């Protein structure tokens, strides 16, 4: 019976601001790993995933403003034009907030199918900006949206585990 419940109806510890910012920081650090070539194309966008997780699970805590600010930091780190990551993450956060009830209806594996189009749109926005500026598109960049969607399941599992209380609340 309990398998029927959406994941979020489980008892969770209240989310602190520190936990959210730490998760975003770890995601940023993972994004900045010095990869190149095909590995870079296959690298999932950890920041987008963590942002999307918080936008769908805690839409009143993490919203479009935070996504935009994180995007600006990514722009500085990647030496891209100011606003390129920011606009992609803004669109992503908007999608996440609009669909948060719908996404929570599904179990984690089905959620990744719901999340994939959102990631694809966000990647598309990034590529569109780049194409507008440089008239040049590297199609293998879109591979990252696929690996990101695949990573949704393990990442959600990890964050849910961290949010669960250490001791079982049912045993007294």
């Amino acid at each position, binding site marked *: 019976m309990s398998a029927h419940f959406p994941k979020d109806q489980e008892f969770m510890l209240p989310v602190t601001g520190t936990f959210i910012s730490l998760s975003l*920081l770890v995601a*940023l*650090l*993972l*994004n*900045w*790993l*010095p*990869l*190149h*070539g095909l590995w*870079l*194309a296959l*690298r999932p966008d950890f920041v987008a995933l963590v942002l999307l997780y918080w936008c769908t699970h805690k839409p*009143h805590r993490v*919203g*479009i*403003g935070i*996504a*935009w600010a994180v*995007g*600006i*930091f990514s722009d*500085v*780190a*990647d*030496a*891209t*034009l*100011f*606003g*390129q990551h*920011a*606009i992609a993450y*803004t*669109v992503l956060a*908007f999608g996440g*907030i*609009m669909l948060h009830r719908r996404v929570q209806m599904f179990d984690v594996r089905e959620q990744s199918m719901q999340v994939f189009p959102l990631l694809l749109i966000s990647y598309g926005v990034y590529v569109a*900006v*780049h194409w507008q*500026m*440089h008239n*040049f598109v*590297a199609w*293998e*960049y879109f591979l990252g949206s696929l690996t990101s969607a695949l990573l949704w399941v393990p990442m959600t599992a990890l964050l849910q585990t961290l949010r669960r209380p250490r001791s079982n609340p049912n045993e007294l």
Partner: protein
Amino acid sequence: MDSTRSFRFFNRGPSPAARLVFFALLSLLLLFVDARYKYLESTRRVLSIVVQPLQRMTTMPGVVWQEVSGYFATQSNLIRDNAALNQQHHMDAAQLLQLQILQAENAQLRKLLEVEQRSSYPMQMAEIVYIERDIFRRKVFVNKGSNSNILAGQVVMDDTGIVGQVTRVFPWLSEVTLITDKDHAVPVQVLRTGLRAVVFGSGDISNLALRYMPISSDILPGDVLVTSGLDGTYPPGLPVAKVGKIERDAAYPFARIACTPIAGVDQQRQLLIVSGLPKLPDLPAEADSQTLEKSRKSKRRMP
């Protein structure tokens, strides 16, 4: 409060759609300003002071791995490397002797011909800290910045040839655009014939393209391209690329020429930054535009 509006228990600020429009417009404005006017470089520098230590942290595992594996380098490896380097050193020393004689001779000849002396350039060693994580571009970051007097526009090379150009300088770090970057061009000349050309990056790791060369131009596979020094950025005579495949199709006005860079553009870790290039005299642009305007005016007056 307006009674016709439905009562809201919690005030959550503007709706997501309004926020989306606001932040999307803000991003577009920033994009436009950054791409067109480059006003935001100082903001970028300030933010980079926060971001860079974190970025350094992510390269730590790689650095630690290198140091550990370097520590455990086997003795036979060291002996072999040492022997090879010794041999290389002897060969280089012999060539250097010849070079010194040639340099003296060249200086003498240039003095006789009253041509401006070619000076040697001071160089700084820099190490690649990390590579661009943007799949669209070919850029690296090196560990020397404005604190070691690096300026944007300085040339970056390795021991075999040109690698790229410093395009952005941060306090402890600078961004180098590689010659293989899509938006990068180097003025070159063919070493064999002296033919001038421009070689463009292709956005690919090991490919350059020689564009706008007529089909009849005298270029053969294997020709070496060296910098011509005509742009005032690259010093003349440094090797850039070797000509690979040439396609001469009469249907197109230009030949398609693919080249491979000579320097290990994506292999090296240590790079040399060349500073203190001699300044070329300024172009007489103002006079030209004035005379052009005058001639235009006179033409207008004619009818």
